[in-house]
């Protein structure tokens, strides 16, 4: 391993030579500086290689050939090598992205850059306490210069505040070093740590000063106003260096002095870190300025890393490997993503900016496959094992807030909004792209390392990448490709699955393929749609494949991720996507806790304790949009692209149903679980929740003017029935649930596809702006007609089977009132269904829609396919029920049984085939009767009849199809005042207000900031006294 001293010498030499070299031209000086940075990076990587693969051991380098205590020692171990590589990489990339400005500003900028990075590297390597101080000072002083290098007033002011804070920190540090030297007689860290001199109150106080200085440098809440101002005002490259590289160095410094710290010190670090994580994120929630927001996020992330390091020492979460994995993973994730994001903020919105910004933002919030995801998983896993619930709750809640504001920013970026004042026309995407690549690489490696080696689990990401590369091609090329990928996935995955999973594979993968096909309804590349829809489909398949807690959660989060991006892709998708993701992640966190607590959702899994199952179930219910946590649903379904809405409703919602079923299946496998189920109150509660979801979904649906909103609410309601049926939890209930789920897939698929065609042809989603389309789009009408008959449960189509099964199972179970409410809910469904088909296809045709054509083949074809299936299973219910009943098996007694075509329950019977035949015969006779008696018909056109008034200018108020069910609202409107929405809004408002209050600390005044720091340290000291 090369001696790092040479590198320090090189940095110093080059920095001092630069003013001379600069006379020969700025290009040369730039090249020299970059070369030096690259040398650091190369050295770091070579150390890393030697230590991880070359069999080398951690090495100490003494200066001037002596050993400690006579010399200053530099240590190169795994952590140092990784830190060095990371900070040099970030430094180099930031420097490259700053090259235009470095070229135009005085040479001092380049010099300070070299010095700052060298100082940080020194902090990483040194084992000497005083030398650490020297490097801290070098990097700080260089940083002040660097912040102000481009000579802007705001940056100068921020730099000055930085200097004040740095000065206070240095003073504290020096005091600490002085006392430590006094007590131990040593400046070498390792020797000092092993010295008995630090025991006792005085020693503890000495260490405290050391620690306080490092903490202040790590920008803890609330003593971090100076840092926020710097992030806000400095050049994004500088901000990236400070947020990424400097933080890495300081974090390693903290890690280095751990041996000196006692439990009280560690508690301070942990508490301070957690407080920074929570408060930083709360303050960020309110922030509109991108860089300041990233600043808050930096503060928060550093707080989390700090807390993890301390918590590991305090609770023994998992030793050194654990710290590398979690704290290291989080730090790596933070430094790569944050630097990239800072650099992105100066780039004008474009396809590339969006893609990279998206990758980096998603990495930052800890979604798979990025390193933060794995780190967070291991962290929470360790905390769950230690039962640290309060800490888990804090971390997850704050993570959710962070995801909210980071992705809010990304959402506006994706919609082409940016802060004009921050844009830099010469900025390039090279550095962010490299950072994103590194993040992805590290993420995949971590996943591989964590034991996720099943290639099919990674297939969604692979497909997304592949299709993204081909994204410029026409959708007619990509869609068949994506469908082929789905088919291949199905071919490889399904044979190994059990019956239940194969059943769901049909809906998830088959549905995905169907909607991919329908995406060909419009020509052109339709950029972004195919990669995301294809990947989302495969991620649904991956959920079925999962065979461990981690793989299940991985697939689940992948599903959340891709569907979020799909919703965001919708024209007005920004807000709904954010709310979708916030709830999706919130649910996912609950699910994660459940999984880590032992809830098993894969074949042969143990059931786990009751609380874990309850948490997992709660997480799944959020995904299903149960009443109370449904507020994300209508917006997401309505604003996504039309085929995506169908995919979300028909296919993706089934993944939630699947998870719930898997959970209950796991539960009934073990005796304790069966006992819990038999107690009933939990299931009864679940049943009522499902029922309330069904009823309110239907009630909300009837008031909508927007067709897709109607369908969205309807989906929510229909899933409510499935939950209700599952809660019954016997053979009949399970059969009902699976039957309802498959049926919902069929008719909602048809409805969304047909509506996609209508919206595409008509160009509006408001029902009162349509009418009389039956003559223009007869096929779509037929499809909607069959679908609503099936949905409403009117015989003879298969929907009635669902109703019959539901009521039979409910009454058989003794849930009478539930049955009555379910009946009411399903009657309410008639209201919105009638309105849907009537307002669109019947009634008065609109003159502006006289030239509308039938929907494109890409939409009618899948509808025809679904219609054929629907008819077949309606006439022969056994086609559907035999497999379902085989999957369900004999759960605590057979309730439903077939004799020929007749399905019997203890209460009654239903012969689907016979009722179909009778209905068809009666209908045929009536039809013949009508035809025989039809004479001399005169067909009339629209305006042959009296129309009450002139054409209305404001259809919204005068058209009879507007506010169609007003009497209903008058009678029952009080039920549907949006309580849950108001609740979540005020919850969000509360968080935001809290954040706003916290932000008042940051006055922008350097003196105030100095006071904060001093008070912070004083309070820490007092707290330590108590500990």
């Amino acid at each position: 391993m090369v001696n790092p001293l040479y590198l320090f010498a090189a940095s110093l030499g080059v920095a001092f030579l630069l003013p001379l070299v600069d006379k020969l031209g700025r290009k040369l000086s730039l090249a020299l500086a970059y070369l030096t940075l690259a040398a650091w990076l190369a050295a770091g990587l070579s150390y890393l290689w030697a230590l991880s693969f070359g069999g080398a051991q951690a090495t100490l380098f003494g200066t001037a050939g002596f050993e400690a205590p006579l010399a200053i020692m530099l240590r190169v171990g795994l952590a140092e090598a990784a830190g060095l590589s990371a900070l040099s990489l970030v430094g180099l990339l930031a420097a490259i992205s700053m090259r235009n400005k470095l070229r135009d500003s005085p040479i001092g900028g380049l010099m300070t850059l070299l010095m700052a990075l060298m100082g940080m590297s020194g902090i990483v390597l040194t084992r000497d306490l005083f030398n650490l101080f020297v490097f801290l000072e070098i990097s700080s002083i260089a940083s002040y210069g660097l912040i102000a290098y481009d000579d802007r007033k705001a940056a100068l002011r921020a730099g000055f505040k930085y200097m004040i804070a740095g000065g206070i920190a240095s003073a504290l540090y020096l005091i600490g070093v002085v006392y430590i030297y006094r007590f131990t007689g040593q400046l070498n860290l390792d020797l000092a740590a092993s010295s008995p001199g630090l025991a006792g109150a005085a020693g503890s106080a000495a260490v405290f000063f050391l620690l306080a200085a490092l903490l202040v440098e790590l920008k803890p809440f609330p003593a971090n106003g100076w840092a926020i101002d710097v992030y806000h005002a400095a050049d994004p490259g500088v901000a990236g260096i400070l947020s990424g590289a400097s933080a890495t160095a300081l974090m390693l410094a903290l890690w280095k002095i751990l041996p000196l710290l006692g439990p009280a010190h560690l508690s301070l670090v942990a508490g301070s870190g957690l407080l920074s994580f929570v408060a930083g994120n709360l303050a960020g929630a309110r922030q509109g300025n991108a860089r300041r927001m990233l600043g808050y996020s930096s503060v928060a992330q550093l707080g989390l890393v700090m807390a993890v390091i301390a918590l590991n020492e305090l609770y023994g979460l998992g030793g050194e490997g654990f710290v590398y994995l979690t704290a290291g993973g989080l730090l790596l994730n933070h430094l790569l993503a944050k630097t990239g994001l800072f650099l992105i903020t100066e780039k004008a919105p474009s396809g590339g900016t969006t893609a990279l910004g998206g990758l980096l933002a998603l990495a930052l919030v800890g979604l798979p496959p990025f390193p933060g995801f794995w780190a967070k998983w291991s962290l929470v896993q360790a905390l769950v094992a230690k039962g640290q619930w309060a800490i888990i709750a804090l971390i997850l809640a704050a993570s959710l807030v962070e995801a909210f504001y980071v992705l809010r920013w990304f959402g506006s970026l994706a919609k082409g909004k940016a802060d004009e004042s921050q844009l830099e026309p010469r900025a390039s995407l090279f550095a962010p792209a490299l950072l994103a690549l590194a993040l992805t690489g590290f993420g995949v490696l971590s996943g591989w390392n964590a034991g996720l080696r099943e290639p099919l689990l990674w297939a969604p990401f692979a497909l997304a990448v592949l299709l993204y590369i081909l994204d410029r091609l026409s959708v007619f090329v990509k869609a068949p490709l994506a469908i082929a990928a789905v088919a291949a996935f199905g071919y490889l995955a399904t044979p190994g699955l059990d019956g239940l999973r194969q059943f769901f594979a049909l809906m998830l993968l088959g549905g995905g393929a169907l909607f991919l096909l329908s995406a060909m309804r419009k020509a052109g590349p339709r950029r972004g749609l195919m990669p995301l829809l294809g990947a989302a489909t495969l991620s649904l398949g991956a959920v079925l494949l999962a065979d461990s807690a981690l793989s299940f959660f991985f697939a689940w989060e992948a599903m959340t991720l891709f569907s979020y991006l799909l919703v965001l892709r919708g024209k007005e998708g920004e807000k709904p996507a954010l709310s979708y993701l916030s709830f999706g992640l919130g649910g996912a966190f609950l699910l994660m806790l459940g999984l880590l607590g032992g809830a098993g959702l894969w074949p042969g899994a143990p059931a786990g304790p009751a609380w874990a199952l309850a948490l997992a179930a709660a997480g799944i219910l959020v995904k299903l949009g149960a009443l109370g946590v449904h507020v994300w649903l209508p917006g997401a379904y309505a604003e996504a692209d039309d085929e995506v809405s169908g995919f979300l409703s028909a296919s993706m919602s089934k993944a939630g149903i699947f998870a719930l079923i898997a959970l209950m299946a796991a539960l009934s496998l073990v005796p304790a679980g069966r006992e819990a189920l038999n107690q009933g109150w939990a299931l009864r509660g679940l049943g009522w929740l499902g029922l309330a979801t069904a009823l309110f979904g239907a009630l909300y649906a009837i008031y909508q003017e927007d067709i897709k909103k109607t369908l969205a609410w309807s989906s929510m309601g229909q899933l409510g029935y499935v939950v209700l049926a599952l809660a019954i939890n016997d053979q009949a209930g399970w059969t009902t649930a699976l039957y309802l789920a498959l049926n919902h897939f069929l008719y909602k698929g048809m409805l969304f596809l047909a509506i996609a065609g209508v919206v595409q042809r008509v160009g509006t989603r408001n029902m009162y702006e349509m009418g009389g389309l039956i003559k223009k789009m007869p096929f779509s009408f037929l499809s909607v007609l069959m679908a609503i008959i099936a949905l409403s449960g009117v015989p003879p189509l298969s929907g009635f089977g669902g109703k019959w099964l539901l009521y039979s199972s409910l009454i058989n179970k003794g849930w009478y009132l539930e049955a009555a409410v379910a009946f009411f809910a399903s009657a309410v469904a008639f209201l919105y269904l009638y309105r849907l088909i009537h307002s669109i296809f019947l009634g008065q045709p609109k003159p502006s829609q006289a030239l509308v054509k039938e929907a494109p083949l890409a939409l009618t074809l899948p509808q025809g396919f679904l219609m054929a299936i629907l008819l077949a299973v309606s006439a022969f219910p056994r086609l559907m029920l035999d497999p379902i009943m085989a999957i369900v098996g004999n759960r605590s007694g057979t309730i439903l049984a077939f004799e020929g075509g007749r399905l019997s329950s203890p209460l009654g019977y239903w012969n689907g085939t016979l009722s179909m035949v009778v209905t068809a015969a009666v209908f045929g006779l009536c039809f013949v009767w009508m035809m025989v008696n039809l004479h001399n018909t005169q067909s009339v056109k629209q305006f042959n009849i009296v129309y009450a008034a002139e054409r209305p200018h404001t259809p919204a108020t005068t058209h009879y199809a507007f506010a169609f069910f007003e009497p209903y609202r008058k009678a029952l409107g009080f039920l549907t005042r949006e309580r849950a929405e108001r609740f979540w809004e005020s919850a969000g408002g509360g968080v935001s207000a809290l954040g706003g209050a916290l932000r008042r600390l940051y006055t922008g005044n350097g003196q105030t900031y100095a006071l904060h720091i001093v008070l912070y340290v004083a309070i820490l000291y007092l707290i330590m006294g108590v500990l």
Partner: protein
Amino acid sequence: MDATLLQRVGYAFVSLFVITNYGLLLIGSMARISAKVQGRVGQPVYQPYIDIIKSSAKRNSIGHGVMFYLGPVFRLAGGVGTYMFIPAVFGSALFMNFSDSGDLLLVMYFIFFGQLGMALGASEGGHPYSAIGVSRGLAQMTAFEVPFALSVIAVAVQYGTLDITAIVAAQQGGFMHWTLATNPLAVVAALIAFLGMSMHNPFSVVIAPQEIPIGPPTEYQSNLLGMLQTNRAIFNGAKLVLYMNLFFGGATNIVVMVIKTFLIYFINVFVGQAFPRLRVDQSIRFFLGVPTLIGIASVLIAAF
């Protein structure tokens, strides 16, 4: 059960013929009774026959499209089908119809078949009054279905079955075995729902028969109207038979059926003559109030 398929089809036609004529006469006689109450002479009892023949004989002056024609077909098929799924006379092969297709749930949901089809057919006519009538009708329907569903559940709980024949069988053996005697609350709830179902006063705003005609039939004429009128007779008959089976001990022969259904239908007329009309929102709140509570009470009584 032993009858061949052909025999069963033949029986079904006989049964249908009986109920059609009975339904028509019932409507005619009720109209005449109403007239007497209001101090008028009223129409002859056979007026519905005249109406249907006259309508069917007329030329079809106006057609609006496929769904417009299919509306009455759906409606009539809905009426006939509903009747076909109900055993009309207990123990009679002639009147068992095709009740082995499904139980009470099938009947309750098949009632919607005709309503839905009719609503769609009428909507294609494009007349706003049709649609408004449908919107009112549907809104009111959701409300009166609640007490009805509750009383049906009460019956199912009480007899432990949803099989109509079995429910009738359980009520044999005299008045004290009728649901009317064993669970009167269920019957009260169901009868109040019946008032809504029949769309007589005070729940007649759906079709607003006295002023501007509103409701699905607004645009229908000629044989299409004839089909609707025929359906009215059959559908009424079917519902009355259903009520008789569920709550009034069923019928062991056709005479008992006629007497019982006549009396049940008379309740409608009686209430209709005595009460003024409610607005739709009022009737929704009405049905979801006291009648629903009565229904819940009936279920609780049956369950415990």
